C-alpha cells in the first residue's frame, strides 16, 4: 500500500499555540497542543489552584437545529428531556443507536422553542451530522453543521469570570451553572455558557473564527494561562467525567456508563429507548467503577483489572493525580462492582487497588 498522508486540520489558533511553545500533536483529526512551555503539571495546577486556564477546543463540533419541530426532533434523537430546558439553559445528553449504545455524548443548548444548538465530539462529528440529518426527514427542522466556522474556547478555573468579564457587556454573574447567554462580540454573534469539563468554575465560549485570535489574545492579556490536552485530560479524569472512546462507546449503553441520569425513560419515545429499557431490566453487562491504587504505579487505559485474582475488565481512563495518587475508571464484570479484592496489572505485576467514589478530587463547579 502506498503511504497515505492524512492532512490534519488546524484551528484558527494554530499559530498562536506554536508561538506559545505548544507541542502540537494529532488529535481527532486536528493538530492540537498537548502542552505549552509550562508543562502539563503546572498547567493542571494553574487551573486547580485559582488561576484561569484557557483551552482551545475548537476541534469539537457544533450543530444548529431549528424549525417548528425542533423540540419533537431532539426529544426523539437525544436521551435527556429537552422539554425541561428553559431558554438559555444547557444540558448534558447523548445520541444513541437503536441498540441503545452511544453514537456520542453531547450538550444541548436551548436558544428558543424553535432553536437549539448542539456541541458534539470532534471524532464523531461526521457520524453525528450524518445521523442527525438522516433522522431529520419527516420533521420540520433544519440541521446545520457550523463546526467549520466556530471557534470554541474553554476558560476554566476560579479566576475565569474575572478574566472574561472585561471583554463582555453581559454580566457573567447572571449566568448560572449550565446556563448561557448569547453575545455580540465585536459585532458578531457568540455564546458563552457556564459549563466545562474540569470540575472548576468557568465558561465555554463559542465565537466565529474571524475573532478567535483577538479573543484568545485578550484572554491571555487578562492573565489566562494556556492549557494543553494533557492537563485537560487530567482535570477531566479527576472528576470521573466520561469521555467518548473511553467510558462511552458504541459498545455500551447508558446503563453500563452510569448515564441513566441523562437518559429519561419517562419522556416518550426516543432512539435506543427500547434497548435501554431491556438492558436495564436484564442488568448491565459490565459496571463502571472508580478505583484507586493502593500499591505504587500509575493505572493507565487498557490495563487489565482483576477481582480476587480473576480477570474482570480493564481501565478506561487512568492517571497519576497530584492530589489523589493513582486513580482510574474501569469496567468490570457486574458481580465485581461492589466486592472482591481488586488489582491492576501493571507491566505483568498485580498491583493492589481499592474502590472509591467520584469525583477523585473535590469539584469546585458553581452549583
Amino acid at each position, binding site marked *: 500500500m502506498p503511504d497515505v498522508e492524512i492532512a490534519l486540520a488546524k484551528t484558527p489558533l494554530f499559530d498562536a499555540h506554536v508561538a506559545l511553545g505548544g507541542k502540537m500533536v494529532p488529535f481527532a483529526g486536528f493538530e492540537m497542543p498537548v502542552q505549552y512551555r509550562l508543562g*502539563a503539571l503546572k498547567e493542571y495546577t494553574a487551573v486547580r489552584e485559582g488561576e484561569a486556564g484557557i483551552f482551545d477546543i475548537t476541534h469539537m463540533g457544533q450543530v444548529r437545529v431549528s424549525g417548528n419541530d425542533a423540540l419533537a426532533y431532539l426529544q426523539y434523537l437525544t436521551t435527556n428531556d429537552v422539554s425541561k430546558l428553559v431558554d438559555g439553559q444547557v444540558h448534558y445528553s447523548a445520541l444513541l443507536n437503536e441498540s441503545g449504545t452511544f453514537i456520542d455524548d453531547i450538550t444541548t443548548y436551548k436558544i428558543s422553542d424553535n432553536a437549539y444548538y448542539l456541541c458534539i465530539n470532534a471524532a464523531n462529528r461526521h457520524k453525528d451530522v450524518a445521523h442527525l440529518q438522516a433522522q431529520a426527514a419527516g420533521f420540520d427542522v433544519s440541521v446545520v453543521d457550523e463546526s467549520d466556522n466556530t471557534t470554541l474556547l474553554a476558560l476554566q478555573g476560579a479566576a475565569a469570570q474575572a478574566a472574561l468579564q472585561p471583554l463582555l457587556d453581559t454580566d457573567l454573574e447572571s449566568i448560572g451553572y449550565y446556563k448561557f447567554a448569547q453575545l455580540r462580540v465585536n459585532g458578531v454573534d457568540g455564546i458563552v455558557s457556564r459549563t466545562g469539563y474540569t470540575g472548576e468554575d468557568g465558561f465555554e465560549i463559542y465565537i466565529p473564527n474571524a475573532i478567535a485570535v483577538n479573543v484568545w489574545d485578550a484572554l491571555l492579556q487578562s492573565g489566562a494561562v494556556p492549557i494543553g490536552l494533557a492537563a485537560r485530560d487530567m482535570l477531566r479524569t479527576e472528576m470521573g467525567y466520561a469521555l467518548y472512546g473511553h467510558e462511552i462507546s458504541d459498545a455500551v449503553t447508558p446503563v453500563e456508563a452510569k448515564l441513566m441520569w441523562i437518559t429519561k425513560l419517562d419522556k416518550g419515545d426516543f432512539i435506543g429507548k427500547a434497548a435501554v429499557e431491556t438492558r436495564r431490566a436484564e442488568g448491565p453487562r459490565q459496571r463502571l467503577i472508580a478505583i484507586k491504587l493502593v500499591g505504587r504505579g500509575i493505572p493507565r487505559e487498557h490495563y487489565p483489572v482483576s477481582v480476587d485474582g480473576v480477570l474482570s475488565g480493564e481501565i478506561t481512563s487512568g492517571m497519576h493525580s497530584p492530589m489523589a495518587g493513582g486513580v482510574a475508571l474501569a469496567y468490570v464484570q457486574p458481580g465485581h462492582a461492589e466486592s472482591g479484592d481488586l488489582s491492576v496489572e501493571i507491566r505483568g505485576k498485580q498491583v493492589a487497588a481499592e474502590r472509591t467514589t467520584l469525583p477523585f478530587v473535590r469539584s469546585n463547579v458553581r452549583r
Partner: protein
Amino acid sequence: MTIPANLKYTKDHEWVRIDGDIATFGITDHAQEALGDIVFVELPDIDRELEAGEAYAVVESVKAVSDVYAPVAGVVVEVNEELEGEPEKVNTDAFGGGWIAKVKISGDGSLELMTDDQYNTFLEE
C-alpha cells in the same frame, strides 16, 4: 543545558558514568525534555543482572510510559530511592540528582557509547 564531559551517552539518550567497576545510569536532559513532566519512576530490583541494552527501569510522564535501557552490562547494586518520592528530579537534574541506578560492571557488554562532543553532534543531526 551543557552536556557533561565526564559522562558517556547512548543513542537512546541514556547517560552512564563509570567510576572503577561501578557504572551510574540516568537519562539525558534531552530525554527528560522530550518526555515532559515525569510523575513516576519504576526502579530495578537490587542484585538484578542486566545485559547491555536491557530495559531496566521505566519512567512515566503525564502521558507516556517509556523504558530505560542499560548502557553497559552489570548487576544492580544501588537505586535512587529518592525518585520514588520525587520523580521530578529526573526533569530538574537529569545529569545529577536524577540518576536512576548503579551497577557493578560485569564486563559482558556495552552499547555503543558516545563522548559529550559526539552526543552533541548526534543531537544536532
